[in-house]
């Protein structure tokens, strides 16, 4: 039972990080219908920015806010300058551009911060070896509790934004029908750019939280997290933010259980594959994810 709670809790914390990045993917997909392959790398760059501000002496909380602003600017800027221009011409082009961004940002981070000794990103929460609480016999580290709390609070704010504000209404309008939205007087360009921006800001936060747990930053920081996040977005349904959160948490918990209870067959190195295979089976039963809307086809 002690192990059960341990895996459950660790899984929830890690899953909340996947969920944050997945939420970014979903926001972008709902807005413009693209899978942003560079989401993870944008988050990675922002994490380095946070570290850089912190290294210059800015308090950590303030650096994280600055990093999220940079993330917002990066996302919105990329959408407005590059993605929109290419999307007008070809959809396959958007895919190439997002891969080009992935490669370019990765290389840029390695160029700027590559040769320094591995950066230690201080955790946002106390992470000394004895900073934990025992609940049901499981070790609940303050760091993990903090990650979970921050992620959940941000998700809550985001849902308020979607559901209760005029801007959220505009976003949903653009997602459901861009043409009509434009005719109704909604500035679609600004809305789309901001949805990319919001995704970028959330990426920055998930990167910082993940960087705090991992400790060392490098250019490959977010690659695995990105795969988990896209798996979460797929499992939840690519057009469902709620689905992304639930799926992200589920994947986080699921991989801990799989790796923990089957150390011989699955273990740490096979847990990603095992998680992906499970999702694969789920998709065979529900082809558009657990909470995604089924597309009605017309000939």
């Amino acid at each position: 039972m002690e192990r059960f709670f341990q895996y459950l809790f660790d899984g929830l914390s890690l899953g909340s990080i996947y969920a944050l990045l997945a939420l970014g993917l979903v926001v972008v997909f709902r807005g413009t219908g693209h899978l942003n392959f560079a989401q993870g790398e944008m988050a990675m760059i922002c994490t380095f920015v946070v570290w850089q501000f912190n290294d210059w002496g800015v308090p950590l909380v303030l650096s994280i806010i600055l990093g999220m602003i940079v993330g917002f600017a990066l996302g919105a800027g990329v959408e407005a300058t590059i993605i929109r221009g290419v999307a007008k011409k070809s959809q396959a082009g958007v895919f190439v551009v997002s891969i080009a961004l992935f490669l370019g940002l990765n290389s840029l981070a390695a160029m700027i911060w590559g040769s320094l000794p591995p950066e230690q990103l201080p955790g946002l929460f106390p992470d000394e070896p004895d900073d934990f609480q025992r609940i049901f016999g499981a070790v609940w580290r303050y760091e993990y509790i903090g990650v979970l709390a921050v992620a959940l609070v941000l998700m809550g704010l985001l849902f308020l934004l979607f559901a209760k504000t005029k801007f959220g209404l505009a976003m949903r309008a653009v997602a459901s029908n861009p043409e009509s939205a434009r005719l109704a007087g909604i500035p679609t360009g600004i809305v789309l750019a901001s949805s990319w921006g919001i995704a970028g800001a959330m990426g920055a936060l998930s990167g910082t939280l993940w960087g705090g747990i991992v400790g060392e930053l490098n250019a490959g920081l977010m690659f695995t997290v990105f795969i988990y996040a896209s798996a979460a977005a797929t499992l939840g349904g690519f057009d469902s933010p709620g689905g992304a959160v639930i799926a992200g948490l589920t994947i986080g918990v699921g991989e801990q259980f799989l790796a923990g209870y089957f150390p011989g067959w699955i273990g740490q190195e096979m847990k990603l594959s095992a998680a992906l295979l499970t999702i694969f089976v789920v998709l065979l039963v529900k082809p558009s994810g657990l909470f995604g809307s089924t597309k009605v086809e017309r000939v």
Partner: protein
Amino acid sequence: MLRIDEGSTRHWLLRLLGFAVITFIVVWVPTQMSSSRIGQFTDAFILMIAAMSLNLVLGFTGQISIGHSAFFGIGGYTAAILIKDHGWSPGYTFYAAAVVAFVVGCVVALPALRIRGIYLALVTLAVAVLFPTLVRWKKLAWLTDGSMGMDSVRYEDVPVWPILGELKGREGRAVFMFWLGLIVVVATYLVCRGIVKSRFGRALVAIRDNETAAAVMGVNLTTTKVLVFGVSAALCALGGVLSTLKSGVITPDGQYVTLLGSIVFLLVMIVGGAGTLWGPIIGGLVYVWLDNTTRDIGTSDSGILGTLFGWADQSPATLILGVVLVIIMFAAPYGLVGLAKRLSRKVVVIIPKPTPYGLFGAIRRALEKLFRSRSQPAGTSTPS
């Protein structure tokens, strides 16, 4: 603007000219260039094969796949295991790899029957992530040697082929791999061309354009999708075998075996031109050229780029590659072949022929008259 009838003497002369230019390049490269250059062309061949195979699935059938690196790896590992553990002659492993990958490809196709679009992208991504971990998995180490990979998988002695004469040493091996690669590229191209121009190919395009409509028209979605995935996987495996034979090593982190391989194949295909026969070929050449050029730029300290990037500790090669890719996508959203087609249309227009000419045409017309008295023969559009 020049107007040329399809099948006319001038059209044949134009085709002959194109063929002559390609033949000249193909003969000139291995005889005149340094062995490292020849090796780069072989790299381009490997990418061409993989991108052509991906093109069948994505460009023509519209089924996204980010899993082709797995097929590539299956090809490479089949070759390595057969050569190292079973003492096969390398040449035969091409066939074996194609068969193994065909079967795996058909199995991977099964989800594509139900899952579409972005969800299929993730399923195939799972395949790409799964393959290297499976290879590294300790329970399979008896077969794959785990994360160590397998080395010295190559021709012990370069076989003697009639025209090439005796090839010796490193240079001889490079020249030999060039010709071997060329043969596989041509074979892959012919298979793709045969498929695309056939009834099966029309079915693929119909599926891409509208699945429901295709099914209504009588296309068997299940068989067609499964077969095209199988064939595509088999072709991609050929690229894997070639790559393994060229470098002599294969590891789970090796070139094009991981997820990044799939991404490179996609880049090559889309940059060249998705859904065109020549797209992957042009894309492969351009990608390898870009890759090598940017790497050279990254190492030089002089010139504009040297000043621009002199502060950086790591090579800016990938960054420049990314920027160039974005520029290409702005200039040629339908790939380089799409751009070339659009530009050349301003100079030369090939007018499709109304009815088949020549002896075979006459026979075909007679048969068509016999069997299809009601309908007009296909392609009777008058030249405009």
